[in-house]
């Protein structure tokens, strides 16, 4: 997620953003993104069926009353580690033949302060950002408010970013 500081382009972008429409998406071959939608659907199904998006499962996790969530996160990380290791070891390319590179994470104090703040919210809402989308999909319409609040929280962070310790 790199920032593109092309002023001219950003200016045009914001003009379009003002009305919150994006007419140029078709020019960008938007349908290429459908494959991510399909992965998202499969991911969402796993989320619901494994009850990862359940407020109750999150409460169990933070009370050490169930192994379920630890098993899921742990085995997901191990699977991801093996996959990333294989991709790097065999220099695997994307389906389009592009090289795969993963940006390293740089440490800053935000990971501590922000991490703690997110943890508080996680145990309150019983959801991290991904589950919010899935919960709304299951028909819990009131979670739209939680999602909008999360978007507002992200925006407020962006607004005060320079003043916050990092």
């Amino acid at each position: 997620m790199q920032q593109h500081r092309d002023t001219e382009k950003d200016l045009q972008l914001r003009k379009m953003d003002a009305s919150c429409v994006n007419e140029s998406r078709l020019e960008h071959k938007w349908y290429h993104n459908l494959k991510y939608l399909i992965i998202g659907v499969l991911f969402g199904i796993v989320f619901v069926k494994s009850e990862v998006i359940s407020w109750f499962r999150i409460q169990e996790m933070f009370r050490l009353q169930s192994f379920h969530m630890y098993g899921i996160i742990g085995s997901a990380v191990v699977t991801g580690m093996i996959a990333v290791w294989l991709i790097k070891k065999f220099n695997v390319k994307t389906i389009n033949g592009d090289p795969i590179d993963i940006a390293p994470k740089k440490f800053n104090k935000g990971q501590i302060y922000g991490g703690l703040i997110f943890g508080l919210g996680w145990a309150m809402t019983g959801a991290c950002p991904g589950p919010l989308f899935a919960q709304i999909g299951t028909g819990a319409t009131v979670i739209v408010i939680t999602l909008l609040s999360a978007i507002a929280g992200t925006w407020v962070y962006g607004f005060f970013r320079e003043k916050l310790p990092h």
Partner: protein
Amino acid sequence: MIELLKQPWPWYIAGPLIGLTVPALLLMGNKSFGISSSLRHICAWCMPANIPFFKYDWKKEAWNLFFVFGIFLGGFITTYVLPNPSPMEVDPRLVHELAAYGITDYNHLIPEDIMNWQALLTLKGFILMAVGGFLVGFGTRYAGGCTSGHAIMGLSNLQWPSLIATICFMIGGFMMANLILPFILSL
């Protein structure tokens, strides 16, 4: 088969499937798994307000918005095609604890007793949903990622800042669930 799929999936099936999202996104187009970024893209899309943090070409990250829309659809599809026929089975100690706060409905993934549109107008509901959501959005962006970007993607790539972030997520969660949440639920 369908009946089996309708049952809750065990962790050793779901965990590896969630982990496979990491290579799937990398192989599809060199995309790093991360969900909370979608909230930033939505800000950049709808309300950048001349804030440098939101002044970037979010359309290049549009894949992320397709991905989270897919997660929404996945939730919708599961509810109508593969609904769990019975209420959720939760640890009896939790059932006992939550009953004291009037939470007895285990037919939904969220506690409908305290999370519904009417409850939003109460102090308890407002804190849980609106304030909680705000902390999720603010905290994940401050931390530079959430459970997916740090705990799964970051740890998969052996990034120690992600380990610190993940530990802090857990500390925050333990503090809230055990020390603060009882007061909020008593409101």
